[in-house]
């Protein structure tokens, strides 16, 4: 277990280079360039606004500013999550020639996918800060919760990415299953709406660990409150447990990669 981390640390340079490669390629020969990083979250925010508008028309209540801010706050990490999962799932199969020809810890592929998407997230986060300043959104010290929550999300995403990349190597339909789930996940994850809108079904929605983190983020930034400790521990369990378990499983099956890819 210790060796497998040491090995990745030893190859961290390669990890950065692969992430750098993915970022570079994404923005090379494109019209929009770095705007791409904002495009996806912006679309999600826009859809969120439409959904919110529909809800306010139905209920007869006007939209509040805090609801819009909540959508913005949750859209960015959500875009990071689905972007990374899509990218990481294909990261081993997409680098087939490297997997079969040269030896190094294969964990660097899904992990570099996480890093590359984190870069996009950072850009869109800057855009969010600008939006906050423009709309004069009130931010309190509770907003600092965003950082540890984001770290939990990164870890959880990495865990999912690692295990999915490995699963996709052995079974190619994993990619399609992931695609379908990621497309519809926005309906059962509280991004456009709040979990509490579902009344007694709230707990069921919060069981989705990504939803737990998103709700906690919105709670901290929009409602200026600390996350619920119980739900926070639940999300941490997913993040740490998922990360280490999937890394372990990945490491265990690593020797089969070259001949099964």
């Amino acid at each position, binding site marked *: 277990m210790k060796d497998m981390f040491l090995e990745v640390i030893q190859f961290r340079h390669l990890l950065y*280079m692969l992430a750098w490669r993915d970022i570079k390629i994404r923005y090379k020969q494109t019209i929009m360039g770095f705007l791409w990083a904002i495009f996806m979250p912006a679309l999600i925010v826009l859809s969120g606004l439409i959904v919110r508008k529909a809800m306010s028309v139905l209920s007869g209540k006007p939209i509040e500013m805090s609801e819009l801010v909540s959508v913005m706050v949750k859209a960015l990490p959500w875009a990071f999550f689905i972007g990374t999962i899509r990218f990481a799932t294909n990261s081993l199969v997409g680098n087939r020639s490297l997997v079969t020809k040269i030896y190094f810890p294969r964990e660097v592929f899904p992990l570099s996918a996480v890093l590359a998407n984190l870069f996009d997230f950072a850009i869109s986060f800057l855009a969010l800060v600008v939006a906050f300043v423009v709309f004069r959104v009130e931010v309190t010290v509770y907003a600092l919760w965003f950082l540890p929550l984001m770290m939990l999300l990164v870890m959880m995403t990495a865990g999912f990415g690692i295990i999915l990349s490995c699963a996709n190597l052995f079974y190619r339909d994993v990619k399609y299953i992931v695609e379908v789930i990621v497309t519809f996940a926005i309906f059962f994850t509280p991004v456009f709406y709040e979990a509490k809108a579902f009344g007694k079904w709230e707990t069921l929605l919060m069981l989705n660990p990504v939803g737990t983190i998103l709700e906690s983020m919105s709670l901290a930034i929009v409602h200026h409150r600390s996350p619920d400790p119980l739900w926070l521990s639940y999300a941490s369990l997913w993040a740490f447990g998922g990360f280490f378990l999937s890394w372990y499983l990945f490491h265990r099956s690593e020797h089969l990669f070259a001949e099964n890819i």
Partner: protein
Amino acid sequence: MSDVVLCFDRIWKKFRRGEQKHDSLRDLIPAVAKKLFKLRRPEELRDQEFWAIKDVSFQVERGEALGIIGPNGAGKSTALKLLSGILTPDRGKISVSGRLSALIEVGAGFHPDLTGRENIYLNGAILGMKRKEMDRKLDDIVAFSELSEFLDTPVKRYSSGMYARLGFSVAAHVDPDILLVDEVLSVGDWAFQRKCLEKMEAFVKKGVTIIFISHNLQAVVNLCSRALLLQKGTVVESGPTGQIVRRYLSEAASPTRGDVRDRTIWIECVTVVDEEGKEADFFTAGDKVSVIINVRSNVKEDGLAVTLDFLDENNRSVFNTSSERLGYGVFAAAPGDSKFFRYDIILHLVEGSFFLKVEVKNYRVERSFDVLFPAASIFVHSDKGIKGTANLYPVFKEEAAPLQAGNQELRRT
């Protein structure tokens, strides 16, 4: 006891033939159920499995260059992949000490959209180099590749030769303790190939341990002191390179026939014999040998000739002759004929292995009846270490007196 840096201890590795049974989750569930009921030991071969490496053992000492030769599919590349850790053996133990670098496929990590410079850094990282190390070596790498003017061009615009050159240049600048090389010299033009070989020789001189796989037997002979002959996953023989190459050539010479549309007139057999008339395949430059060719016929045909070709390892013809051109003229064959011909030749060749190609054809209408290649393969050793293409039998000495008047034009003043 000298220093063993690499040990391959009774390694077994199996592969599956044909399509993999379950590639999607849908097929997995029945397969798992089946597995639960029928437990098997990993050593057993299931249907469609075969041993790609079968009980192979060898050791390499520090600073040694080991060549691995053998026909396609013998398990050479598999052995290297096992060594580098890409594959794991089903049985046996591999131990490696030192920084190992594998030149298994140059440019494997290149991305077509990145420029040459960016790819150098990327590929360097893949081969385990740090960024600072790369910064220091960049100039050397670029100089070696001779691609400085295309450094900021995306490699997708490179020709395949340029691609390979860049790949080899990066790989050649890793400082490994052990270097695994798998047939990477077959790229680039002649000058670059030579440069690569020189680089490898420099590695050997520097004391780097090398495992070298190549079909360029001459390169193996030049580079490696010891060689291993693999065939169908097992070690046939290991020992001094010259001996192993000879063994390989005599075994691998399963001739392929040319376009034999009908067995009208054909070459039954070709044998190479030494001065005493004994069959042989290992000679010294300057030896007198005879090539005996048996031609048989089922039809009546006139105007026939037998040609003899010597090709080197690069499939280059180093010598070509035909019975007709030698002044023998053409010959006729009748149904049921079995004729024996004999070429007496002197092996004025350089060191290396040569393949004989024999063809019987009708000289007048340019119709080929049968081609046998390689009809035989021989290995020539030059005791004076003559290399190159032609053996000019040089003699070198110091002149005691000035040259005679008749040779004055030779003198440089």
